[in-house]
């Protein structure tokens, strides 16, 4: 378990002064607390002797207040030092975690689901904080407090003390056993909980289908069944809890009973003063909490260790894609060349790209056509190194992309991905994403090219409209157009549109393409589309099939190859259009 805590060592070292101060405060608290029953004992013995002066009692009471003051101040201080440190460490680790995530490559995020990474940034860091904060306190405090109290009790009357503490270890054992029992049941509860919310989630997402097919009752009965099972499982946890805490009180009550029996005998035999029995009563109560927390401390430290190793996994993950040492700085120009590019994803049997070569001089436009899964997206991703190409296969601005500074390489691109992901920020901030300092004039220009202005200016909040989670308040077409404006903002050397107009209606698509190509004159563009009518704007068209270049050439050349896929597509699409006009002609 200690091995895992090595990850936390640099952080702990940074805060060692605070931890030392916190530990010192804990010692003051423990010491003063152990003193307290002694003072009560003195008061009781004074009173029971029958002969005491007012001043003597007052003195004892003032000592009590003094000790209480020391306890209060030290308690505040240890919280300040230790909880403060654990919170600061948590924040620092979260920063480090986030920072690392930003550098990790696409492959990592495919292998690790968002939910899992989130769990590390939230639950796991929380567990680490618990372990480094409360875990440290209960461990340290538990050990010292227990030791001090036991010493005080045994010093008074070893026989009585021994008898009275017998039930206490049972509390710790109970907690440890309880942890396992609850853990298993709780796991079941969580499973059923996510099933329950899964059903609710799905029914509400598909509510149109549910209503259209009048299936409300069927889904309600699914939900009802999951609901029953969840409630049942929750109760089985509740049952354990219901037994657990009363049992602890019972055991602690048992120590009181033993003390009265054994201690009473000692008092009757003049072996103990009445004050001592009262003090012991207080000491026993002080032991209950360390016994409970001993069980929790073990769980807390174990959980903290497990969580630390999960956090460390992320922190120590090396970005698969990074700038090479001595990478060339400065943005490359817009020429693109692929030389025999082959790429196979890990775990895939078949290469995603195989021997793809092409040359795209700066200022020209490339069109890409191909079925779903033909390797189009992989090709696009290899250019800005979202997936890593082999050395000597991808060249941008005449240099191997692997030799360029990663940030500079990527800044050369304006990418409109297929899913047009937007952040939940204002529309304006999304457009300005790459260039926060984007001038007003340029802003106007790019939103007008993306035909975004007329839509957004009709929104009540205009450009300040907040895009809902994953762009929920915008239509698919509007999202795509925001993504286009975002990519245009930096006036990139190479603009990439990955089927980025699919949700825009035909009329608008045409207008956008026209404006876009005018704006981009002299710069490089790459268009992926299913529509031959879009691809005809390209200087060079590449048809991909199962990762290979099946055809390449100009629109006209490809059309001329009447047996080819491109010509067939063109014919099919033309035929549909042509059939219409033909039919009209016949009528």
């Amino acid at each position: 378990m200690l091995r895992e805590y090595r990850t936390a060592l640099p952080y702990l070292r940074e805060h060692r002064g605070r931890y030392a101060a916190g530990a010192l405060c804990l010692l003051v608290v423990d010491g003063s607390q152990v003193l307290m029953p002694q003072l009560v004992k003195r008061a009781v013995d004074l009173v029971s002797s029958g002969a005491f002066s007012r001043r003597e009692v007052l003195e004892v009471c003032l000592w009590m207040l003094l000790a209480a003051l020391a306890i209060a101040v030290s308690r505040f201080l240890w919280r300040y030092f230790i909880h403060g440190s654990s919170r600061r460490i948590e924040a620092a680790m979260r920063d480090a975690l986030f920072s690392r995530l930003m550098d990790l490559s696409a492959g990592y995020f495919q292998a690790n689901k968002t939910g899992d990474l989130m769990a590390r940034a939230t639950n796991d860091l929380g567990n680490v904080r618990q372990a480094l904060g409360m875990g440290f306190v209960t461990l340290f405090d538990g050990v010292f407090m227990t030791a001090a109290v036991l010493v005080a009790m045994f010093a008074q009357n070893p026989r009585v003390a021994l008898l009275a503490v017998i039930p206490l270890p049972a509390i710790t054992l109970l907690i440890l056993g309880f942890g396992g029992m609850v853990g298993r049941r709780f796991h079941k509860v969580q499973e059923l909980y996510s099933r329950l919310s899964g059903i609710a989630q799905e029914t509400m997402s598909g509510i149109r289908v549910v209503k259209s097919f009048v299936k409300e009752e069927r889904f309600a009965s699914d939900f009802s069944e999951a609901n029953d099972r969840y409630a049942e499982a929750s109760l089985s946890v509740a049952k354990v809890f219901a037994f657990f805490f009363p049992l602890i009180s019972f055991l602690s009550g048992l120590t009181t009973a033993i003390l009265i029996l054994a201690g009473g005998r000692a008092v009757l035999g003049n072996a103990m003063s009445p004050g001592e029995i009262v003090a012991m009563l207080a000491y026993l109560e002080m032991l209950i909490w360390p016994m409970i927390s001993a069980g929790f401390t073990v769980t807390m430290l174990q959980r903290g260790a497990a969580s630390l190793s999960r956090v460390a996994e992320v922190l120590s993950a090396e970005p698969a894609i990074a700038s090479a040492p001595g990478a060339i700085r400065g943005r490359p120009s817009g020429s693109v060349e692929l030389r025999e590019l082959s790429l196979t994803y890990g775990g895939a049997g078949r290469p995603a790209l195989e021997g793809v070569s092409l040359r795209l001089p700066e200022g020209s436009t490339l069109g890409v056509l191909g079925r779903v899964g033909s390797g189009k997206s992989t090709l696009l991703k290899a250019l800005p190194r979202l997936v890593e190409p082999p050395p000597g296969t991808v060249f941008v601005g005449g240099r191997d992309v692997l030799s360029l500074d990663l940030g500079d390489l990527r800044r050369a691109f304006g990418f409109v991905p297929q899913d047009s992901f937007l952040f939940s920020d204002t529309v304006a901030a999304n457009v300005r994403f790459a260039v926060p300092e984007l001038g007003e004039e340029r802003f106007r220009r790019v939103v007008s090219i993306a035909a975004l202005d007329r839509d957004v200016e009709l929104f009540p909040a205009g450009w300040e409209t907040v895009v809902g989670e994953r762009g929920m308040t915008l239509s698919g077409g509007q999202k795509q157009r925001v993504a286009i404006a975002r990519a245009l903002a930096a006036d990139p050397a190479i603009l990439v549109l990955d089927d980025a107009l699919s949700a825009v209606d035909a009329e608008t698509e045409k207008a956008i393409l026209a404006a876009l190509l005018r704006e981009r004159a002299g710069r490089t563009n790459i268009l992926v589309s299913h529509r031959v009518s879009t691809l005809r704007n390209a200087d060079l068209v590449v048809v991909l099939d199962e990762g290979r270049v099946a055809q390449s050439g100009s629109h006209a050349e490809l059309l001329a190859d009447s047996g080819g896929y491109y010509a067939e597509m063109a014919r099919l699409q033309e035929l549909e259009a042509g059939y219409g006009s033909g039919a009209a002609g016949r009528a």
Partner: protein
Amino acid sequence: MADYFESDVVTKDYDPRIMRRILSYLKPYKSSVLLTLIALALATAGELLVPVLVRRIVDEALVPSWYAVEPGAEGLVRLSGDEPRVGGAAYVAARALAELPRSERARLESEGLLGEEPCYVADLDAGGPDRRAAAAAAAQAAGARREGRWAVLSQAELRGLGPEQARALRARDSAYIARNAPILLAALAAVLAASFLHIFLSSLIGQRIMKDMRMELFRHASTRSLAYLSRQPVGRLVTRMTSDVETINQFFTDVLSAFLKDAAVMAGVLAVLVALDWRLALVVALTLPPVLVATSVSRTRARDAFRRQRQWLSRVNSYISERISGIAVVQLFAREEASRREFEAHDRELLRANLGEMYVFAVFRPIVDFLATLTTAAVVYAGAQLIGARLVSLGTLVAFVNLVRMFYSPVTDISEKYTILQSAMAGGERVFRLLDADEAIPDEGRRAMPSPLRGKIEFDRVRFAYKEGEWILKDLSFAVEPGEMVAIVGYTGAGKTTIANLITRLWDAQEGRIEVDGIPIAELPLAGLRRAIQPVPQDVFLFSGTIEDNIRLGPEVSEERMRLAAAAVHADEFIGRIEGGYRALLSEGATNISQGQRQLLSFARVLAHDPAVVILDEATASIDTETERMVQRGLEGLLAGRTSVVIAHRLSTIRHADRILVLSQGRVAEEGRHEELLERRGLYWNLYRLQFGGKTEE
């Protein structure tokens, strides 16, 4: 969209209406609640009994003391007569003395009839005849004055005895302890049983109520109109049914149950204190005001700190989650460094909020502990004076010290409970807001569905707006004859999709009439109408489950009909190729089948339910030409022999249509067959060239 981002911040701390409403869910469980309360009372009484028993043992057995009342006091005080008497003086137990009326005791003292020093009176017969000799010898050794079975010693004389002799002399006290120990154990066992019952029953009631509430929410939400549901993000509805209900559960288990327990213990402690000694109870009461002040100050501080903490936590978490989901965009635009800076600023705020919360508790808890000690010290000081004045017994003082500790232990976490109470109130408010949403399509149809339905559809001057004032349909009139296939075309936003929503009454039109087979649809039973007329939406929604589940949607559709339907739309071909066939599981979002295959499943689903009328909303998303052909074949199977309205996005569809309606600005602008409309060179002609990739620019 107004309530899409509805703020979930609840500003009110406590709302009695919400509380009453939450509590009203207890009604069906009245007897369990009663039992819980009884268990609670028992547990509390048992817990309070323990210090009282300890007090008795201290007073009666551990430190019993007597005062001599000289002869001649009979006229001044009423003695019971069975007090031990030695040398003419009656010995009155300290506790009995403390209970004497003030005036009587004052008289005794002023007359000098009351002994100054507390002494010990031993009962030499208590150990039985065989122990009598040993007891007498011990009394002898201590120098006690004896008379009959009684021996009187000073406290100093008693302390001077060795262990054996002291025990022999105090046989009565040993017996007293031995008698009371089982009572103590029984009290502890009773507390154990009653506490278990109390906690378990409150969880049971809580869980039952949660179950009821979730079911009510689910049924309520799923029967709301789409007009309402489309304004609610799915995540929010799910949260209402799950985590919001969970906060109310916390209210039942942590607040209602534990809080009642704490309150019962605190009230019980106060009551016992008063019963034991009102003077010392007054001392305790005098030290309480600062506790109340500290609690109420920390309550508001804790609430504010907690809110800030939650707010920043959710901001930080959603920032992380969003940046992870959009990591490709971040990296493509090389915004890693900027994101880091932005995140660190957020994280710093969260740290400040976290530390703020820590300070509140770091200050509050030590203060309460200090005040507890202050109370104890005050009790000890005042108690010592009262004991000196023979007004209070030592046992009472010990009981007070213990009871004060009991009283203070719930105070430390009272602000945490208060926070839970608040989040339960907030949860309750949100849950009830959903339950109070009364937007549902009225199902008041009295007329029977025509059987068989011929499938004639008529829109007559229908006006409809999703949002008030923004009319989507303005005076829309058209008719579809039984068996006819009508295509509807128009620019985006012309109101095409809305037509399907209105015929199936997913929304109700504001004005105008919609009739099916000559009957206004509002007069037909909703379920019957929806079964007879089925929409095929643009976006196919597949549930997680098997292909079979997704076609059948329940047991009403037989397996055979499912297979026939799948075959008719040619979905059987690809299903046969998938491993597992109809039993194949569709993954989340059904990414394991293609767009076209999803469409075919959706067709099969509709066909399996055999509606008389199909309203098809063709997908606009560009799909490759092969997929398009596949879908086309499926479509033919679906529409064969049925009345259909197709919101067309594909050329082949309009070609097949019996009639085309051109929708513009919420009205039918043109109507006719494809060729006729083209010849007219109007709206359709224009639209056709644009939308269906017709020849070149003008």
